């Protein structure tokens, strides 16, 4: 990489983990291009916000073109935007599973595809997707969500092979529950039972997610691809 500032795209930066990551990497000297459906109040010279739905192909392509036009490069993509919903499968309307797959699967796919186009040009890139422990723990009430993240893991593994020749690695981080709005609606008893199933039974913190991401995106991690690292020993 040249001495120019590295460029990172992060999805879902209005709040939660994405917001935390954006602030962290801005402090580390990255140029951060963020997005979410809503406006973000993050103010920084090296931050630009794109209001878009990650499942909207045209908007994703436009954002990536804007990045290329401004910086001519993209070093890192963090596919963080995601939605969950707690519901018994027999009570889940089709529209709900559609919305979850659109955001978590199609959104991740579109961003990864468009990012790889920019990264391929410089033969360097790091893509990090977001999974969840709900998949390996087979969490009841989260069938649609866990299935969508299982798809993310599969995309990660196969895309890693398809873009390895372009110098791009693709990995995923699988967080345990981390206190954000996403888990706000899950009943406490359910949360306690879930956390008890981890090897290390505590809530995850945003810094735990960050730690795994930082490992994946290091230059030295060029031999690490197609992997999903679950937090908490799940």
């Amino acid at each position, binding site marked *: 990489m040249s001495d120019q500032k590295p460029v990172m795209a992060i999805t879902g930066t209005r709040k939660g983990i994405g917001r935390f990551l954006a602030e962290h990497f801005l402090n580390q000297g990255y140029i951060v291009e963020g997005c979410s459906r809503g406006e973000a109040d993050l103010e920084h010279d090296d931050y630009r916000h794109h209001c878009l739905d990650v499942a909207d192909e045209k908007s994703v392509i436009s954002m990536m*073109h804007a990045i*290329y*036009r401004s910086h001519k490069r993209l070093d890192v993509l963090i596919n963080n935007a995601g939605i969950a919903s707690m519901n018994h499968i027999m009570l889940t309307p089709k529209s709900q599973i559609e919305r979850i797959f659109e955001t978590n699967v199609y959104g991740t796919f579109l961003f990864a595809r468009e990012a790889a*186009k920019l990264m391929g*040009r410089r033969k360097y890139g790091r893509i990090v997707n977001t999974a969840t422990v709900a998949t390996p723990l087979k969490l009841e009430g989260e069938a649609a969500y866990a299935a969508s993240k299982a798809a993310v893991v599969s995309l990660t593994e196969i895309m890693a092979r398809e873009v390895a*020749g*372009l110098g791009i690695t693709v990995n995923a981080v699988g967080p345990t529950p981390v206190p954000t709005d996403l888990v706000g609606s899950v009943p406490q008893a359910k949360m306690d039972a879930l956390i008890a199933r981890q090897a290390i039974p505590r809530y995850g913190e945003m810094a735990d997610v960050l730690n795994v991401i930082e490992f994946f995106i290091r230059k030295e991690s060029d031999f690490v691809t197609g992997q999903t690292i679950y937090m908490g020993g799940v």
Partner: protein
Amino acid sequence: MSLSREQAVTAIYEAIDELNPQLDGISLERSEDTILFGEGAALDSLNLVNLVMMVEQNIMMETGTEVLLASEAAMSRKRSPYRSVKALADYAAEVAA
């Protein structure tokens, strides 16, 4: 914001210039007859993908036109728009119109 066929050819030639140093032992010619894909093609699939992506980006940078060259429509054509420089230029000018 539109794209002439000439601009499309220029965008492809620029992508060829950029890709050539990355190719192992081969070099693509700046000619409309250069075969890109299929029988007699010099590029493997990954380099073809990379070339097509570079062309998309070059067109966008030079003309402000956003063309999607890797689309369902492109994949399902009987005669691949990736076959040669000429076919790709025709296709780019066609979808940008």
